[in-house]
């Protein structure tokens, strides 16, 4: 696991304190969306389809700090929209660092290289760069040729300047596991701290409604990708969550583990679903009808979700509050998950032409 010891210590003690205090619901990471404006128009994204007057709105630094303090989570992810389009992003980040929050600034990195001089390297600050795979795959997925190369320049410069950098990938149906593994080699060679990954979620507002994987397919894909790991690969995620994606363990969704605050308020029930907003974190925890969400609820909007915002929290809690989970987490850090069946899957996926037919991000006819 690529996460620094100081961060692991902060998170583990936070989890244990909350458990010892008997809290049923608490959050590990606040998803802070200070704006929805973005410089990309990705086909799989359902986050930025709003009228212009909504896209122009931004949270103020004071609103961000108030939300962070109210929530109390030790980690803050700043997605969006594109956070670097926010004119006060440096002030927001510095304010969060001053509060000793571990900040993951999630960026498409189109602006990263020339904005880096405005930030100071810190153990609390990580640039989490959106890269969905190798050059062609990423560019096609984000609907912009050249986006990969620009992001790579930003990553290399950030690494050179001593920043913590991760990549952050979302995989949709049709992705080639061999290409994903080659992508892991590429980004680790750039010196990033680790890789963050997730299966795509079926946003009902996303332009592409035809490439969302069901749970069975997600498990098969991630087993192919994450088995037989190379020694150079590091993941900035709980090993137990990765095992969940591979189908080796099961968790129930913990939507309050990564709550979302944005220009509309505290979002019910989670980062992915928009079922209403409330004015405070306390109200979010107390008034959301949590039993209506998650796989056991039968809610079809939750049926295919295996995304980290719901399922990494239970993995982290499992790892830090049970001996069995702790040992599994420790083992997961060193386990390469040898798996002949997964190797077979990789060779099958490498067989030419068979899967190109319905592949969302490898339309061969478009690459002439």
């Amino acid at each position, binding site marked *: 696991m690529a996460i620094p010891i100081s961060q692991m210590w902060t998170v583990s003690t936070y989890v244990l304190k909350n458990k010892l205090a008997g809290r049923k619901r608490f959050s590990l990471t606040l998803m802070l969306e200070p704006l929805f404006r973005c410089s990309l128009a990705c086909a799989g994204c359902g986050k930025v389809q709003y*009228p212009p007057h909504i896209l122009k709105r931004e949270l103020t630094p004071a609103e961000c700090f108030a939300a962070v303090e109210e929530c109390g989570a030790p980690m803050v992810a700043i997605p969006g929209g594109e956070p670097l389009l926010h004119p006060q992003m440096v002030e927001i980040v510095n304010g969060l660092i001053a509060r000793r929050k571990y900040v993951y600034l999630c960026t498409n990195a189109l602006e990263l290289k020339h904005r880096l001089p405005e930030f100071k390297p810190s153990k609390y600050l990580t640039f989490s760069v959106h890269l969905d795979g190798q050059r062609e795959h990423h560019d096609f997925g984000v609907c912009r040729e050249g986006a990969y190369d620009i992001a790579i320049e930003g990553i290399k410069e950030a690494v050179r300047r001593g920043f913590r950098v991760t990549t952050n990938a979302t995989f949709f149906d049709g992705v080639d596991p061999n290409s994903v593994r080659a992508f892991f080699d590429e980004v680790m060679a750039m010196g990033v701290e680790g890789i963050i990954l997730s299966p795509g979620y*079926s946003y009902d507002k996303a332009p*592409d409604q035809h490439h969302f994987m069901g749970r069975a*397919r997600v498990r098969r894909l991630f087993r192919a990708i994450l088995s037989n790991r190379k020694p150079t690969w590091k993941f900035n995620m709980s090993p137990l969550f990765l095992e969940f994606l591979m189908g080796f363990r099961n968790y129930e969704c913990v939507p309050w583990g990564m709550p979302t605050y944005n220009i*509309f308020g505290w979002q019910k029930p989670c980062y992915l679903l928009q079922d209403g907003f409330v004015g405070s974190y306390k109200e979010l925890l107390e008034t959301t009808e949590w039993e209506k969400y998650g796989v056991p609820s*039968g809610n079809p909007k939750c049926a295919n979700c295996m995304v980290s915002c719901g399922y990494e929290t239970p993995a982290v809690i499992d790892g830090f509050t049970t001996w069995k989970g702790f040992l599994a987490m420790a083992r997961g850090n060193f386990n390469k998950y040898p798996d002949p069946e997964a190797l077979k899957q990789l060779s099958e996926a490498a067989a030419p032409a068979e899967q190109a037919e319905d592949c969302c991000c490898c339309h061969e006819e478009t690459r002439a």
Partner: protein
Amino acid sequence: MTVEVQKYTMEQVEALEVAPGADHENLEGWVPTLASEEGLRDALEKAFDYRGDVTLTLKSGERIEAYIFNRHAAATLAESWVQYFVSGDAIKHRLSYALIARIEFTGKDRAAGKHWEDWVKHYNERKAAGETNIALAPEALE
């Protein structure tokens, strides 16, 4: 967007190969008939889920062009409310269902009309024309 009735069993969920996407309801330009309380509630639920502005006409005659981002459906119309933003105003407004006489889905639906196939077509056409740096740009903020 309300929580829908149960559709999947655990076994079905675990065996899902492909998750069905959503069908976009074409609401742009729609003016629902608000003949009953149920009709009003249904229209406001759709307005909450709509990714464009709507125009609300109040029983007082006032007209408000708004983006509805939240709703609270309670037992009575008087207790139920929507929350909205209007352009150029930072305030989160709140309005009781009981005050609303008419709803028009007047704004462009920002979640409609953009499909993966459109991007593939756009890409193929530009590529065939010998262009490079092909991209879809975010919509202008007007």
